[in-house]
């Protein structure tokens, strides 16, 4: 599925004691396309607006202007219920930071996208992902017992479990070693190879070797390279 952003921007209010409240654009008005079968890498300094753009693309954050189109359909024109269901079916999002549900095991966390809407989980896919990400032995462990990198890989497996058409990964390899970083990028590259539209926000320079397209963000302004 093709994800298209038309003239999207995001404006935030920022409290400032000296100058009072004023607004600024975390993402300046920009067009952006995420094509099927490609892996797009987005780089940029901290605070440049990468996560903000990614959240708008994923239907989690309403743009201050512009539209986000999934195969031509305006994502934010849908009511919340449908937009959420779309996200469940077609999007695999890996947010920044730790995102495991504490009361569930690793395997249950990975299968969660299925159970939200009461669907039959794809156990083989879960098995395969856990092998590839080297967390097979942790299937029954609770998140509290895991390391940061293990939690991160659990989140990646959860995002990929439904073979989503759109993958939005926000620093997916932040706390991984080189070996696991390479494994994750291979996974994402394979997903793109299988037809997914993949966006990876990262600081890793190694990511360039997997990138079909490269963008840079600077103070809310997006530029293609």
């Amino acid at each position, binding site marked *: 599925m093709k994800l298209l952003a038309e003239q999207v921007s995001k404006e935030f209010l920022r409290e400032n004691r000296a100058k009072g409240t004023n607004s600024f654009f975390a993402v300046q008005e920009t067009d952006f396309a995420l094509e099927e079968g490609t892996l797009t890498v987005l780089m940029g300094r901290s605070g440049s607006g990468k996560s903000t753009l990614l959240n708008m693309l*994923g239907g*989690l*954050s309403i743009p201050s202007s512009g539209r986000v189109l999934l195969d031509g359909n305006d994502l934010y024109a849908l009511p919340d219920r449908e937009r959420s269901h779309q*996200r469940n079916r077609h999007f695999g999002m890996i947010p920044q*930071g730790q995102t495991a*549900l504490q009361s569930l095991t690793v395997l249950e966390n990975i299968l969660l996208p299925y*159970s*939200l809407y009461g669907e039959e989980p794809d156990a083989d896919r879960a098995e395969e992902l856990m092998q590839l990400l080297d967390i097979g032995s942790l299937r029954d462990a609770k998140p509290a017992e895991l390391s940061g990198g293990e939690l991160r890989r659990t989140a990646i497996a959860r995002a990929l479990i439904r073979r989503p058409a759109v993958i939005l990964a926000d620093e997916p390899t932040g706390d991984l070693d080189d070996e696991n970083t390479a494994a994750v990028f291979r996974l994402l590259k394979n997903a793109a190879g299988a037809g997914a539209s993949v966006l990876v926000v990262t600081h890793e320079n190694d990511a360039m070797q997997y990138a079909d397209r490269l963008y840079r963000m600077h103070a809310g302004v997006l530029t293609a390279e």
Partner: protein
Amino acid sequence: MAKKISLPLRNLTGKPVRTAVLISLTALLTLTVLAGSIIVSSLRQGLHSLEARLGADIMVVPYEATTKSRLENIVLQGNTGYFYMENALYDKVAAREGVGQISAQLYLASASAGCCSVPVQIIGFDPETDFTITPWIKKSYGKPLADLDIVVGNDLNAFVGDTLTFYGVDCRVAAKLDKTGTSFDTAVFTNQNTIKALIRSSVDRKMNDFQKLDPDKVVSCILINPADGYSVEEVVNDINIHVKKVKAIRTKEMISGISESLSGVSDITVILIAAVWLLGIVILLLAFTMSVNERKREFAVLRVIGSSRGMLASVVLREALTIGVIGGIAGAALALLIVLPFNSLIETQLGLPFLLPAAGTLIALTVAALLIAVLVSALASALSAYRISRLDPAVILRGDQT
């Protein structure tokens, strides 16, 4: 492999201590409201039943009986005792204007000594004129009471067909009355002939406080309802002014002491319940808010994975409802287990007429208490559910990246 994961349940079992505390709290709330309302309604029932059993608006007794405050003890407290006045007084009272239904009763107390099976208050009524006891006995015993047949109160350890001996006279238990929650539960009822025989025998055995008593010539008390068009007040005053050596009393006045302490107990119960509830609801509200706040990030993750706003709210509400149902059932069961088996203990502790409501009412009270428990937990979590459904996942996931 788990197919469908119930998030609310997993969240509850994942935090057993917090869940246990919340369930106990809901149970406590249900317990207080159910136990409290059963006690209050039992007291009301008791008073009601006492009023009904007294059955007459006016009671006329010999003047001496009132001075020793014996009367109230006998009628209300279940103490035993007796007093008498001449028959002639009955005729005088009956002749007064405004007297409608009128009937005399004879009292006797059985001794605890060897002559009698049990020490009880014996009340003899006149089947010809009686309007207070007969309607009530009829419920347990259809026929008129034969001589030497007795009807026993519900608390007495005697059963239909048993023989009880009073002052050497054998009496057959013809019927046992339903529980009234009043002192009548420990009394024995007979017709005039029987009680006269018993009184005679007690005098013969020199076991009566009144020697040379001729039961044919005395009565213990006279029960009166005013005739149509006359107020209780008028009749009471008329008798007190015109008939000497007796005292007419409004039965309402007699039990006003009881109604007062009853409303006192009710008030205290209501205040206690209110205090427990206020505290409980505040704690529940805080607990739900805290438990949801500390999981904000998890809820944001659920949004990322594809939960709608409504689904998040439903997770929170279902957690609360589960707690409400389990806590409610536990609390209601506890309340019934405490109040039902120990109701006679509560009765003696309170020293007030106490009659458990009928099964139907009990069930209704229990269901109401359960509903309240569920409703309160739903309400206590509603705010959290709403706030969680409004959260902005993008904002939540930015903060505190641990």
